[in-house]
């Protein structure tokens, strides 16, 4: 007797994949098969639709029970003189369990996207900023300055959801919004207004962007710049931009840290944030750092409230010790300082475990592939699909409840890390 599996349709499903936490998805679930029917995008749809393949944990390539895999991991951690818990592409409770385990196991915590995230964190810790959140931008922005980033490549629905709404709270004519790219130009048409107004583009290379930003800030401050051009951008054009920023009612300066792919980009981010503060002497202006994927905001928030510090914190000495340079997972792996790497990756199946000489334990999404089989692999559920959860959005303030869409039987990252902590 075969049972017909009913299709279940769920509405207003939040996406943990898209960074801006679009929660207007319509999703179809038939048994274990999930499909995004409405409002998906290049990150969200594959995120939901990745099928479950492996279900069994493996130790050294051999299938074992979860209990065996957990005990084996605990054994590795007990004798490890330097453990790094990283990847950390997980949700609220996965992050909580990771922090508890790091504390007990004297490990170092880092996130797979830290290289990008720290371009913002270091600025917050040094001079701070004046930032805003997505709903404010949606309703107020009259000038959007996009720095060094092709937003739609990383956030396909950003313009549709945030910049081109049908109505705003303050009766703004959407067509009057100015979009200006400084640095990289747009790869598509998302920044073009509904009536066809294209964004303005002032191109310059990443290598020149820091200097361009410094000159722009100087022009906002009313300084005279002797040079005629900087990084191929005319100083007169930058001066005009500075004037327009000062005249805007609510300018928003945005960037995607992961797209500022040059060393020491945090100093450029700082230049932008200080410029925003200068603009606020007379006008209103706000920064909007975009990111939020792979649980990067969630994990940093949890680490900060539980330990005082964000990622790249170690518990080597029995208390939290923060060092964004020494406790950088990728650096530690490259310099072969790590005995055991515990890598958590429950969202994006294409993210690879970094290669290293460390013994590697992976809590990964089912179907994840490896260049080298790890010592332990435990397939875990994806928050927002296989189990309920909570995740923070790019702007750091808002978090959403994630749904359970199917009963896959896969354990959550929280379950597995808690079990490992118990076993330690």
């Amino acid at each position: 007797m075969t049972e017909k599996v009913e299709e279940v349709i769920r509405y207003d499903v939040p996406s943990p994949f898209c960074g801006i936490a679009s929660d207007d998805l319509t999703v179809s679930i038939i048994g274990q098969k999930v499909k995004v029917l409405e409002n998906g995008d290049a990150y969200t749809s594959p995120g939901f639709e990745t099928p479950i393949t492996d279900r069994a944990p493996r130790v050294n390539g051999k299938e074992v029970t979860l209990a065996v895999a957990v005990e084996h991991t605990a054994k590795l951690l007990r004798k490890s003189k330097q453990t790094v818990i990283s990847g950390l592409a997980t949700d609220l409770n996965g992050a909580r369990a990771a922090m508890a385990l790091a504390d007990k196991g004297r490990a170092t915590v880092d996130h797979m996207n830290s290289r990008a995230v720290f371009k913002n964190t270091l600025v917050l810790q040094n001079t701070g900023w004046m930032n805003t959140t997505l709903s404010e931008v949606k309703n107020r922005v009259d000038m959007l300055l996009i720095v060094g980033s092709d937003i739609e490549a990383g956030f396909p629905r950003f313009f549709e959801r945030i910049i081109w709404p049908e109505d705003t709270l303050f009766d703004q004519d959407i067509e009057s919004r100015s979009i200006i790219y400084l640095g990289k130009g747009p790869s598509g048409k998302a920044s073009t207004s509904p009536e066809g107004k294209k964004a303005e583009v002032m191109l310059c290379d990443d290598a020149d962007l820091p200097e361009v930003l410094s000159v722009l800030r100087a022009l906002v401050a009313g300084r005279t710049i002797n040079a005629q051009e900087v990084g191929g951008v005319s100083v007169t054009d930058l001066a005009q931009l500075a004037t327009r920023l000062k005249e805007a009612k609510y300018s928003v300066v945005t960037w995607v840290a992961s797209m500022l792919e040059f060393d020491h980009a945090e100093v450029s981010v700082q230049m932008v944030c200080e410029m925003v503060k200068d603009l606020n002497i007379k006008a209103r202006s706000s920064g909007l750092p975009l990111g939020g994927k792979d649980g990067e905001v969630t994990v940093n928030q949890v680490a900060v409230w539980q330990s005082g510090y964000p990622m790249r914190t170690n518990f080597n000495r029995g208390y939290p010790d923060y060092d964004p340079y020494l406790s950088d997972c990728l650096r530690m792996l490259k310099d072969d300082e790590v005995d055991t790497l515990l890598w958590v990756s429950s969202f994006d199946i294409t993210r690879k475990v970094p290669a290293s000489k460390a013994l590697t334990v992976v809590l990964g999404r089912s179907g994840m592939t490896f260049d080298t089989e790890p010592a332990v692999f435990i397939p875990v559920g994806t928050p927002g699909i296989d189990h309920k959860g909570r995740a923070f959005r790019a702007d750091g303030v808002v978090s959403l409840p994630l749904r359970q869409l199917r009963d896959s039987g896969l354990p959550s990252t929280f379950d597995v890390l808690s079990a490992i902590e118990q076993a330690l």
Partner: protein
Amino acid sequence: MLMKLTGGRIYDPAYGINGKVRDIYVDDGWIVEAPSDGKVLQELDLRGKVVMAGAIDMHTHIGGGKVNIARTMLPEDHAADVVARTELMRSGCGHAAPSTLTAGYRYAEMGYTAGFEPAILPSNARQAHMEMHDTPIIDKGGYVMLGSDDYLLRMMAANNDQESINNYVAWTITHSQAIGVKVVNPGGINAFKFNQRKLDLDEKNSFYGVTPREILLRLARAVKELGIPHPLHVHGCNLGVPGNMNTTLDTMNGIEGLPMHMTHIQFHSYGTEGDYKFSSGAAEIAEAINRHKNITVDVGQILFGQTVTASGDSMHQHAGHAHAHPNKWVTMDIECDAGCGVLPFKYKDQSYVNALQWMIGLETFLLVEDPWRIFLTTDHPNGAPFTSYPHLIRLLMDKTFRNEVLSRLHPEAQKASRLASIDREYSLYEIAIMTRAGAAKLVGLADRGHLGVGGAADITVYTDHADREKMFSKPDYVFKDGRIVVKDGDLIDVTWGTTHVVKPDYDKSIETSLKVYFDKYLTMKMGNFKISDDEIVDDGRGSLTIQPLHKGGRI
């Protein structure tokens, strides 16, 4: 398991007990009657000890986005104060902005059994509850911020009736899982987004044309009509501005007798007299508090040293950014809902202004007559970290000590204050009112803050040291829900407290228009905005305690 606490000197103002020797019986987390057969399984000898209910901090920034921004911003604050992991306690750190686990442990070790986050943004409520969930031992809860949110101001601009506003307030408090309503710089956080740099009590918000006074009246009325025990909790206009004492007096006079709680009143009690154009308004403010029986206040005492100010008041935090020490700071505009501002700050005893601020706070404590209407806070961490409460209690109870500290402060400030001439010393009974019985009544906790039968067994036991700072820093015992969690000032057990909320009725039809509003104008669905009870329970450590509304509290 029935335990008898024998022979302690009880200070239980909820029942008028002022130092009488009585036995207390505890069973299964609650205070119970003496057993008829006299049989107890355990007995604790408390003869000679001072016994009070567990202390309640009714205004402390322990959870939410702005607190976490403060933590992230200040790695140097943490490095100076690290806490190593023990068998019992997770590691942590932080002096001004401690990690949540460390905060819970420290509160318990100080005899506190509950703390309330006073500024929960509806759009950030989920995070506030996450952080409070990770705060051990103490019970928690919070007040949800309204008054700068577009939805309310729009309703007021359209002259919607009081009932529709009540509905919205009830809906918000329910779905943010809060126990009270807060308003910060009414309409001012909102006005700053429109580039207004100040907003006086009767000044109009440039977009909605609504004044702070009007906002206060509407919200205070809503709170009263809904039967929410906690009065509207008000962070008034013009925080920190010299001369703002007049705004404060005006605010009290203009609330039409409705219950109103004015928070960190010290920051709102400044005159403009003298060479520094900064003077104490404490006497006038205290006189007004004494006269207006519908007003309650908490002081927001400052104490000297490095701390961080974290507030919803983006307008005034931005205005004061030049005073940030160290020179870094954050403001945020948030979700057409509210905002925040975080500025590290150092209070210096040789600064005229800071010294006078210290004096103003103490003057206020000592000049307000009714201890049921004034509460002990430092607006943690804005005035000082909460770990300074024992020091503050000593200042209130020991005039000699107080005057000795006073004499070492900026000499001109001393001359500008009448503090030296105030002889009053708080009694243990009054401290118990201010930190227990009165606080529980104010917040609306029916089963806490007292030692009567039926109350939760949150009990703190002290040795009666003459040095009150020593006494209040190291309780002999702290019971939380009947379990001994602290002995001799050290944590011996870790438990997890409950989240106190109220759930006033509301007309469900409000959700029709709210849903449309969320869909059209915001970036999150109404359904996903709401915080379910399950989220509070979470992994099982959490629980929800629904406190009763005042009788007749319905819309």
